[in-house]
């Protein structure tokens, strides 16, 4: 029985058959010519046929799709055999003897550039042209189309790593679980898996060699993948299916066994998420990622567009707290109108609040839009800046908020310097929210996206827990009982959530899917027990031990399969 060990990032036990995600299509070499045995006429015919095949395939997929996805697929299907695209390529084949693969590659590149230069909506469509190009080249080469395989039968997706764009084509009714050879606990795969409630294991070296159709067992809590599962594992998967159903509901009341209240909030990216989170009984929004409303945009959204986007979230939570994070562009979330793509070290570059240094005005306009959107809604609107490093920055941000008429300014604590100086920083603002993903990346000097560093990149690291403890202590020392929350992925791990409560964190904000599991576990411990577990975790020699020792004290986790 062959098995692989990775990092479990989203709980669940499941048995299913494997589908490997095809590798990204590589660029045909520049200057690649037609093979001597192929005439230009034949190559042109081959290209047109391939384009038609891709078109038919996309059209068929559009039939099964609904809403926005459907019209995108319909338009993309038309692009596949578009006369402009194909004629451009045929010209290169006929005049220069360029190979069909290279010809379509170049033709699509110039079309995409043309669309990009038109700006706005057209620029956003340029990625569709490049997607179509990859599909045509794959068809010409006789390899599977890139992206998540289309299938009617459920399967476990095995990939190197997933990109944010893959979310759109990932059907959680068909994909049973995610397993990747790369990526870390904070990678996009992990975030997508938690958001969709799919069991997932990342950084499992060697899984890319598993052949399609192989039956495997995935344990998303233990981080293990087993080929040809035994009877016990099949039974464990069946038991999980039952547990998952009972764990599906959160009653909207985050509280420990002895009645200590810990509001459980949701992380959302827009109105659609917010409506779902409200339906899942989230007690508010602990993190509205405003940049998610504007990813893949070339230009700054208008005042009105921003108001509509924010208002949709506020309206989903009348009478509840909604914490808005101002634009967090840069590093893994570049926005063309804010991000300098040529930075040698984007994670340490001009990102988050720092974009106000180089693109002044954008933040000010965003705060004005948030204030306008908040007017007339019943939501309790709080605003925080990402990537604050100093008390001066916190003070400047508070002043900008006051100018916009926003009365509850706060900061994200994700740079270690902010945790270390929490007392002075909280002297300038009303609250702090720990972004544990970045805090871990910076404390451990380990890139979030790198699989080989996955072991370093976990919020279970005692050093990270110490920084969280220092932030809470800073708030106590400041003296005005200013709240400290956690809005990173750490809050979605039920065992770690208990530790965070023990460290003195006031609120936990997570993907709405995790609310029920975190709520259920929190309900079984008293505050004193949580504090004891926090002490154990802080004293552990390393992250693995911290996690293992805390989990050993929480038998409820195993009972629930978490």
């Amino acid at each position, binding site marked *: 029985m062959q098995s692989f060990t990775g990092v479990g990032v989203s709980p669940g036990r499941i048995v299913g058959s494997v589908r490997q995600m095809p590798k990204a299509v590589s660029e045909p070499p520049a200057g690649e010519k037609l093979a001597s045995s192929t005439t230009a006429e034949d190559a042109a015919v081959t290209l047109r046929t391939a384009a038609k095949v891709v078109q038919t395939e996309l059209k068929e997929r559009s039939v099964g799709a609904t809403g926005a996805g459907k019209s995108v697929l319909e338009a993309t299907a038309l692009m596949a055999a*578009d006369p402009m695209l194909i004629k451009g390529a045929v010209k290169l084949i006929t005049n220069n003897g360029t190979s069909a693969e290279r010809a379509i590659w170049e033709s699509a590149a110039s079309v995409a550039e043309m669309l990009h230069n038109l700006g706005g909506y057209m620029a956003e469509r340029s990625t569709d042209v490049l997607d179509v190009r990859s599909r045509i080249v794959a068809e010409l080469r006789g390899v599977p189309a890139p992206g998540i395989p289309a299938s009617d039968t459920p399967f476990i997706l095995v990939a190197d790593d997933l990109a944010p764009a893959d979310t759109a084509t990932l059907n959680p009714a068909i994909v049973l679980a995610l397993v990747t050879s790369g990526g870390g606990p904070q990678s996009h795969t992990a975030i997508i898996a938690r958001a969709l409630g799919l069991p997932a294991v990342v950084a499992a070296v060697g899984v890319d060699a598993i052949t399609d159709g192989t039956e495997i067992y995935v344990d998303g809590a233990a981080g293990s993948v087993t080929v040809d599962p035994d009877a016990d594992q099949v039974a464990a998967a069946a038991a999980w299916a039952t547990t998952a159903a009972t764990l599906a509901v959160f009653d909207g009341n985050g509280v420990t066994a002895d009645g200590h209240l810990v509001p459980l909030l949701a992380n959302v990216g827009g109105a659609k998420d917010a409506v779902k989170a409200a339906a899942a009984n989230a007690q508010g929004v602990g993190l509205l990622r405003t940049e998610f409303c504007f990813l893949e945009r070339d230009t700054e959204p208008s005042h009105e567009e921003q108001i509509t986007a924010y208002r949709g979230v506020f309206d989903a939570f009348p009478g509840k707290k909604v914490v808005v994070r101002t634009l967090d562009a840069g590093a893994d979330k570049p926005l063309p109108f804010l991000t300098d793509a040529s930075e040698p070290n984007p994670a340490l570059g001009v990102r988050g609040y720092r974009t106000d240094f180089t693109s002044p005005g954008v933040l000010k306009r965003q705060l004005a839009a948030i204030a306008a959107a908040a007017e007339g809604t019943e939501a309790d609107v709080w605003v925080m800046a990402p990537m604050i490093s100093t008390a001066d920055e916190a003070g400047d941000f508070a002043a900008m908020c006051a100018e916009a008429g926003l009365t509850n300014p706060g900061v994200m604590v994700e740079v270690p310097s902010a945790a270390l100086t929490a007392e002075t920083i909280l002297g300038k603002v009303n609250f702090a929210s720990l972004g544990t993903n970045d805090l871990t990346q910076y404390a451990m000097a380990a890139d979030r996206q790198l699989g080989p560093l996955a072991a370093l990149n976990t919020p279970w690291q005692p050093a990270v827990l110490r920084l969280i403890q220092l932030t809470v202590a800073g708030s106590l020392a400041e003296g005005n009982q200013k709240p400290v929350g956690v809005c990173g992925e750490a809050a979605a791990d039920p065992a770690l959530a208990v530790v965070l409560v023990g460290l003195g964190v006031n609120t936990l904000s997570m993907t709405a899917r995790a609310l029920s599991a975190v709520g259920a576990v929190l309900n079984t411990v008293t505050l004193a027990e949580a504090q004891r577990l926090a002490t154990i975790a802080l004293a552990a020699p390393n992250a693995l031990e911290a996690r293992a020792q805390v989990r050993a004290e929480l038998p409820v986790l195993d009972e629930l399969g978490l």
Partner: protein
Amino acid sequence: MSERTATIASRVGLHARPAAIFAEAVGALPVEVTIALEGDPADDAMDASSILSLMSLGAANGQVVVLRAEGDGADEALESLVKILETDLDAE
């Protein structure tokens, strides 16, 4: 050479869904049809069956475009296309 003008009725202009519907309709016709903004030289006219051309044309709501076609059935073909352009395709 047959020629017709049409005013774009779709609120979003001739892109996205309206452009897809129009390009598909042109592709199904037996004749080749070109499209240009009113006032632009006929030499700059684009292939109307290409959604990418239509998108780069960027005709907005209320703008007038010129359709041209040659050969048998050109008149009927253009007549049917004018109808499509003068319907708000986004409203469906």
